[in-house]
């Protein structure tokens, strides 16, 4: 049986993946961004949405993935293998950091995770023999024609988006997801009913980080150049959390809705208000906090949609 959320997701993926067929490059680029941020927001959802831990380390893992991917490609590793390397390294690093950081709660966890972004950035800029320091790194780009390159990266990002979506479905239907929800609501009680809370949280943190690493590496290959300030941005870390909240954190479809909405709004703001884009996004964030604290998905618009869809199905069956 297909759930409404899955149907919407499949429709949306179809829309995104077919953009090269009918839309101009600019739209294809936006579709890549939508897929990329959906993957990040869906990843964040595991630790931030299900487990309720305010992780702000997203940009640290995206950046780490970019650097592992870029450095290995610069040193002769093939592109695909560099992505695999990035994924594995981020998985390992995040598990180790998770063991350390997840002893913290609330504000201290938030600070500990956000500091990783700064820390990684500083390391990337000062370890210049490997990372090129503040000058950044040039990555060999694909020598195909531009529209093929765009379609290729669109497909890869959409693949990641589907993977993270499936990861969310798997987690939420599994005892892991149930345990994380328990942890979110009452961590001590969760521990008392037999949940190994430390293990669960570390797994959640690792799952949240790993595919961010892949996204980072793919992004680096796509853009052809990375540097510390672009790769490790506090803005990115918060944007991903805001996207998940905007759509509805802790739900499967919420992060996709949030990321898509935010990216579209951001593109509009960029085009129309070049000087003031940051302030307008700031206002947007403030408004989300005040007026949409539970996300779009809880607004009821979807419920109406869902009912209509169910009605259609019933009609079809008849």
């Amino acid at each position, binding site marked *: 049986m297909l759930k409404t959320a899955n149907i919407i997701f499949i429709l949306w993926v179809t829309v995104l993946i077919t953009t090269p067929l009918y839309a101009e490059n600019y739209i294809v680029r936006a579709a890549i961004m939508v897929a990329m941020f959906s993957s990040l927001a869906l990843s964040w959802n595991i630790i931030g949405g299900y487990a309720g831990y*305010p992780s702000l380390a997203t940009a640290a893992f995206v950046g780490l993935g970019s650097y592992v991917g870029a450095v290995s490609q610069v040193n002769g590793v093939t592109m695909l293998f560099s992505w695999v390397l990035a994924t594995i390294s981020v998985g390992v690093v995040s598990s180790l950091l998770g063991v*350390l950081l997840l002893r913290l709660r609330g504000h201290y966890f938030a600070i500990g995770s956000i*500091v990783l972004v700064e820390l990684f950035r*500083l390391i990337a800029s000062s370890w210049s023999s490997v990372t090129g320091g503040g000058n950044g790194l040039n990555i060999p780009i694909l020598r195909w024609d531009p529209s093929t390159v765009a379609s290729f990266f669109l497909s890869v990002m959409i693949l990641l988006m589907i993977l993270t979506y499936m990861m969310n479905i798997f987690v939420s239907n599994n005892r892991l997801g149930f345990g994380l929800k328990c942890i979110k609501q009452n961590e001590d009680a969760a521990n008392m009913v037999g949940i190994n809370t430390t293990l669960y949280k570390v797994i959640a943190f690792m799952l949240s980080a790993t595919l961010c690493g892949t996204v980072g590496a793919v992004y680096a290959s796509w853009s052809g150049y990375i540097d510390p300030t672009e790769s490790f941005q506090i803005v990115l870390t918060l944007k991903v959390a*805001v996207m998940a909240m905007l759509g509805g954190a802790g739900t499967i479809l919420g992060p996709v809705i949030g990321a898509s909405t935010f990216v579209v709004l951001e593109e509009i703001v960029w085009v129309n208000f070049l000087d003031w884009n940051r*302030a307008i996004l700031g206002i947007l*964030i*403030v408004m989300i*906090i005040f007026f949409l*604290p539970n996300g779009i998905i809880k607004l009821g618009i979807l419920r109406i949609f869902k009912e209509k869809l169910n009605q259609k199905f019933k009609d079809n069956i008849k």
Partner: protein
Amino acid sequence: MEIFQIIVNGLALGALYACLAVGFSLVWGVLNVINMLHGTFVVFGGYLAYFCWSYLGLNPFLVIIPIGIILYLIGYFLQYYLNNRVIGAPVLTTLTLTFGLDMIVYNIMTVYFSATPRRIRLDLGSFEFAGVFMPADRLLGMVLAVILTAMLYYVMRFSNIGRAIVAVRMDRTAAELMGIRIKNIYSITFGIGALMAGLAGVIMVLIFPTTTSVAGAYLGKAFIVCVVGGLGSVPGAFIGGLALGLVESLAAQFIGPQNAPILGFLLLLFLLLVKPTGLIGVKGYE
């Protein structure tokens, strides 16, 4: 360089860090809010002083009071009309809200002040004593930072407002039952936090070139000082600041200035794991 010189540099830097972070610590400790605006407030205060100096020819020491008042009012009203609406919300909500506000203020600054590094050069010369060299503006900045921090301590310790703030920090419900108007206290505290940030910015612009892009770095310093010194306590922030200044000064000497900030963040992570309540000071609400 002589070890004595390194220590003096470290203490001078540390006093600045203390002054820079004490407002952040107060806001975190009392409101339980991680104020992402703090770094931007510092830069804003610095810019105001710079423009008063370069366009109006006003001595930065003269404009300290008006700048303090401006920052206090900005902080007070932001808290009163916006942040107070999410009191007691999870950290992600409050942190994201202050970050959204930060994006707005930051953008206003980049548009009106541009991103060029600014610095007030007073050309006061320098001192040398027992082989230790110290530029006069740096010494002046350090003294000013210590005075400001001491004044905040005095206000917190001996004024009615200060006692009310401490009471709210210790037990919000009890303070409310004693007739303290929590929302007002929160706004005053946030105002004081902004004021201290702005004045720290005035000192910073006397010593270091200031641009909007250093706001993040200043915020990072506030994080470290706060975790080292503990939340909401002025002496804690002071000692945290001195500790960070010394560590950075020593690190700059032995592992290179570009690596020194890394050590600060490692110190923060280490302390979070060993003693999340800070070396000194009281626990937050958690």
